[in-house]
């Protein structure tokens, strides 16, 4: 007996290793349990079509289904969700989606193509502000038609490459026509009626968001979980404390952990959690308002562009987890991105900074010989406060003296959206899809949803439009290269500091949870289950 113990141990260990490796394939999913995670801010308004913070999308992610979505088993693939199948016409300008039959809304009403049409008519309405889904689809889609109660058809303005990934985005989830008619918008908790695996159960401001299992979900046998609870935890110390205490099962939201935090978690939880580093398809930006002094002056914008030390910001505030300077991240979009070797030689990006700082100082002195005081906005969430202080410290070197004005999360977005700022010290923008065109459509074109600084540049608009239309990959890459060079050498409103990466974890009790290339698209939890 004594002799066989070590052997049994070895077998057990090997067995554990194997089962961990092929957990999803070998284990039988277990029903029940509540999965806990957290939302980094209070979402406030819950309308995914008209809001842009990740906190909002996350708050209702499991409640809705899309026409398409990223495959929960392999998030690099796009598969049908409400659409059983879909097809594109040979010219690439007509997409037809064949919808599932017998799908019911959470309030028992039947789902039909009329709901899909109402959804996309809503986000495509030129008078409706839709910073995520609308911003993506408006440039591409001409119209949406209902062919029959189970078929919906999109007419595109041109054969747009990123159309499918935009439709699969979690921001373009399908909502009920009758709910829109009843409530006018989806801001309130009672309007959260979807077709997804979970029903919206409870939202307590600044405290918790709860979903419960949808027993009539259109995929029989799913979901496995009885419910999902999101605690609203603000600030890294609180979030990390919850993780260390085992109160949350996954950390897959913004902001990711920093390295020191990840190390702290590993030492606290040891083998109970799996910690991994990943890109979050998010760009770290600094905004200047191009229609308000002093940044209505391109020289001042150029000065800021030159003075910002991206490498220092990434090294210090992201603990090195990021790609400084890049307007497109080669890790995410491959050769669509300008080679980093070229990027790192551009003014503002090149090291050492002495020459750029001297030039920036000269530009500021030319217009403001005694320097200038600027109000600098920052949302007091995540690591923004730290970043903001470092940004201001860098700008003080060239005579721009910033005074911080802090905003609560939702209030900050409201102010940015209205353009009610002079300078935003730091703000991350996550991409909706992994398409290289996203960053331009979301931030840099005149009509971009997050073009808060109201920059308008004819060449940017023209190149971004050509990029969307170009079907040939090589030619499309050339267009985007030209666009990146143009933005980085002109005086844009938004200075790209870098692409953000970070550390995440999931509890080993959580199974079948797959992280996707963008943190926006894997939070429905439809196939996730807990071992205990």
């Amino acid at each position, binding site marked *: 007996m004594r002799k066989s113990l070590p052997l049994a141990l070895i077998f057990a260990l090997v067995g554990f290793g194997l089962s961990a490796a092929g957990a999803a394939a070998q284990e039988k999913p277990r029903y029940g349990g509540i999965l806990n995670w957290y939302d980094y801010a209070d979402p406030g308004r819950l309308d995914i079509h008209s809001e842009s913070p990740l906190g909002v999308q996350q708050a209702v992610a499991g409640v809705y289904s899309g026409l398409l979505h990223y495959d929960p088993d392999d998030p690099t693939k796009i598969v049908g969700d409400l659409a059983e199948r879909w097809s594109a016409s040979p010219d690439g300008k007509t997409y037809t989606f064949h919808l599932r039959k017998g799908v019911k809304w959470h309030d028992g009403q039947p789902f039909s193509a009329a709901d899909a049409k109402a959804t996309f008519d809503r986000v495509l309405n030129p008078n409706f502000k839709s910073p995520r889904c609308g911003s993506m689809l408006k440039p591409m889609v001409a119209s949406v038609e209902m062919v029959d109660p189970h078929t919906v058809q999109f007419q595109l303005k041109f054969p747009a490459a990123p159309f499918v990934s935009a439709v699969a985005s979690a921001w373009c989830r399908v909502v009920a026509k009758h709910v829109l008619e009843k409530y006018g918008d989806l801001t309130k908790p009672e309007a959260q009626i979807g077709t997804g695996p979970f029903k919206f159960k409870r939202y307590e401001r600044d405290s918790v968001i709860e979903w419960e299992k949808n027993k009539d979900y259109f995929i029989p046998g799913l979901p496995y979980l009885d419910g999902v609870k999101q605690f609203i935890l603000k600030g*890294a*110390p609180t979030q990390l404390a919850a993780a260390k205490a085992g109160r949350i099962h996954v950390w897959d939201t913004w902001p990711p952990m920093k390295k*020191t935090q990840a190390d*702290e978690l590993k030492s606290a939880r040891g083998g109970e959690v799996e910690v991994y580093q990943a890109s979050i398809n998010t760009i770290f930006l600094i905004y200047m308002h191009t229609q308000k002094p002093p940044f209505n002056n391109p020289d001042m914008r150029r000065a800021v562009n030159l003075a910002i030390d991206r490498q220092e910001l990434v090294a*210090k*505030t992201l603990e090195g987890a990021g790609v400084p300077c890049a307007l497109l991240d080669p890790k995410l979009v491959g050769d669509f991105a300008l080679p980093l070797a070229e990027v790192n030689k551009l003014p503002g990006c090149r090291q050492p900074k002495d020459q750029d700082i001297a030039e920036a100082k000269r530009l500021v002195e030319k217009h403001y010989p005694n320097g200038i005081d600027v109000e600098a906005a920052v949302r*007091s969430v995540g690591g923004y*406060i*730290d970043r*903001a*202080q*470092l940004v*201001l*410290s*860098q700008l*003080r070197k060239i005579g721009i003296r910033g*005074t*911080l*004005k*802090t905003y609560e999360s939702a209030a900050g977005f409201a102010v940015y959206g209205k353009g009610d700022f002079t300078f935003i010290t730091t703000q991350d923008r996550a991409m909706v899809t992994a398409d290289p065109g996203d960053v331009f459509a979301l931030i840099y074109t005149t009509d971009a949803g997050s073009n808060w600084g109201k920059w308008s540049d004819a060449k940017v608009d023209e190149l971004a439009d050509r990029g969307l239309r170009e079907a040939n990959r090589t030619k499309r890459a050339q267009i985007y290269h030209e666009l990146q060079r143009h933005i980085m050498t002109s005086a844009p409103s938004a200075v790209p500091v870098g692409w953000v990466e970070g550390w995440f974890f999931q509890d080993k009790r959580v199974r079948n949870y797959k992280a996707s290339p963008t943190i926006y698209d894997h939070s429905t939890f439809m196939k996730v289950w807990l071992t205990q």
Partner: protein
Amino acid sequence: MARRLELTIGMVQEAGLAPERVGRARGLLRALSWFAARQPLGAIGGVIVLALIATAILAPQLAPHGAKDAQFTQYLPPSAEFPMGTDHIGRDILSRVIWGARLSLYVGLVSVAFGVTLGALWGIITAYFGGWADGASQRAVDALMALPPIVLALSLMAALGQSVNNVIMALAILLTPTAARTMRSVALSIKESPYVEAARAAGCSHWRVVFRHVLPNSVATYIVLFTVNIAYAIVVEAALSFLGLGAPPDEPSWGGMLTAGTQAIETAPWMIFFPGLAISLTVFGLNLLGDSIRDLTDPRLRGGLG
């Protein structure tokens, strides 16, 4: 400083509360050595407070680097180059603690000067005149005092927005009712004293009685309120900044530095140790000084020690 202290001694003398020996003290030095002999703990407090004031005034000369300059490596432990280490974005903590003294003292002094003075005048005048105005104003004081101070301060900051001057305003509003209540009780007893009656009998106007007799005789209490509340104001400012609603985050506020430090409490404990120490020392010093001034001016305690 010297002028203020002389003035204080003068006021205490006039108030008839200080022992005769103060009256005989000719120089400031003698007054101080008398104070040190009489109140050794108060003297220690005084030295700490003087050090704080000197640090605040000489901050530009004392601080090796700018309080907001983040050009160093982050999380450096204390060393010869950075005696208190560097923080999470690479600022010299020593320089921030030194500049923080200026911020703390500025917030403490100005808010208390406004809050306590306003409260004192309010309390004395309403106590003297009495009647329905006194009753009504006391109910207003009740209303303000019914709210927990930190909640009141937080809501004021949320409404006013984050800036150093708004912190001062919030603190002043916080300090006014307590000062008004305390000074009112002092003024009520003075109002009934024979010399006030005599002054009134001699035909002095109400305002003359208030400003020539009641006010000067309540100065001792005012001084105690002043010193003790500076410590209180500094702690509340630190608490507000710690909660992220005080001074803007890049201002070198000790409370704000504590907040930043909590992020790295295990990896860089020096980030909270030094600002924490600065707050504790300052409050300790101010409380020792305030307590001994109270002891000196309290007739009961004075009798016992004299």
